[in-house]
């Protein structure tokens, strides 16, 4: 019961924040709405016993990426952009396409619910001795070691790339 209550609370946070993010005129308001939405997503992680990802979501998204976005918003002068037309000319075609995808996804979610029996509640967790973070660490550093290293190279490339992009003279 409390689970359902919190699910709907976080769902409202996530969807409300998301809708405000794509409709707000000012980019700063959009960023704040995005932060609300991301906090809601973090709450959903917590509801599903992914405590490590909950912490990562708060620290990385709400703490890191949002600050990055706000920095860029302050750095780039968005005043004229906020006064101009906010949606581009292809918006009706775009909404039509999104509607088509929505019908498709709704059909598959409905169909999948019965076909794969995912509509039942998750099986009660076998009480494991190790915590969520320990489990993730065990799998990440044994089974997924190579992808982990590749991800670190990706981050290095991203750091170099963003520095080069933001440099005045290359």
């Amino acid at each position: 019961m409390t689970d359902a209550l919190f699910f709907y609370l976080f769902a409202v946070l996530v969807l409300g924040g998301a809708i405000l993010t794509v409709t707000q005129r000012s980019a700063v308001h959009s960023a704040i709405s995005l932060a609300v939405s991301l906090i809601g997503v973090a709450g959903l992680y917590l509801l599903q016993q992914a405590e490590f990802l909950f912490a990562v979501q708060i620290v990385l998204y709400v703490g890191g990426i949002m600050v990055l976005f706000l920095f860029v918003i302050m750095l780039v002068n968005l005043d004229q952009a906020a006064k101009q037309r906010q949606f581009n000319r292809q918006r009706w075609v775009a909404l039509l396409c999104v509607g088509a995808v929505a019908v498709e996804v709704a059909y598959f979610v409905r169909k999948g619910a019965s076909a794969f029996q995912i509509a039942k509640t998750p099986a009660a967790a076998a009480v494991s001795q190790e915590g969520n973070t320990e489990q993730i660490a065990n799998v990440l550093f044994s089974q997924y070691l190579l992808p982990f290293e590749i991800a670190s190279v990706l981050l290095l490339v991203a750091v170099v790339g963003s520095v080069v992009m933001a440099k005045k003279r290359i």
Partner: protein
Amino acid sequence: MGPITTTHYLALSATLLLIGTIGVLTRRNIVIILMSIELILNAVNINLIAFSHYWQNVDGQIFAIFVITDAVAEAAVGLGILIALFRNKETVLADEVDLLKW
């Protein structure tokens, strides 16, 4: 209110994905387009975590970590490109960047 099932999470994540897609396709401001991409990646993560919880298997959470890594890299490089663009063209509107269009 019935019990919350995996299907609820899938429906929520699908809705979030569609909202993010609307943002990417219809907004002109590049900053907001990048934010919408973050929304889409978060929808993917909700999906992964829901199935990870359903199967009682942490592999889904590992994948979510990689998705978050990608999201961070994408945001950093994207915002770097945005700063370079603003320095050269004095605009942040996506449809005013049409040098490669004829």
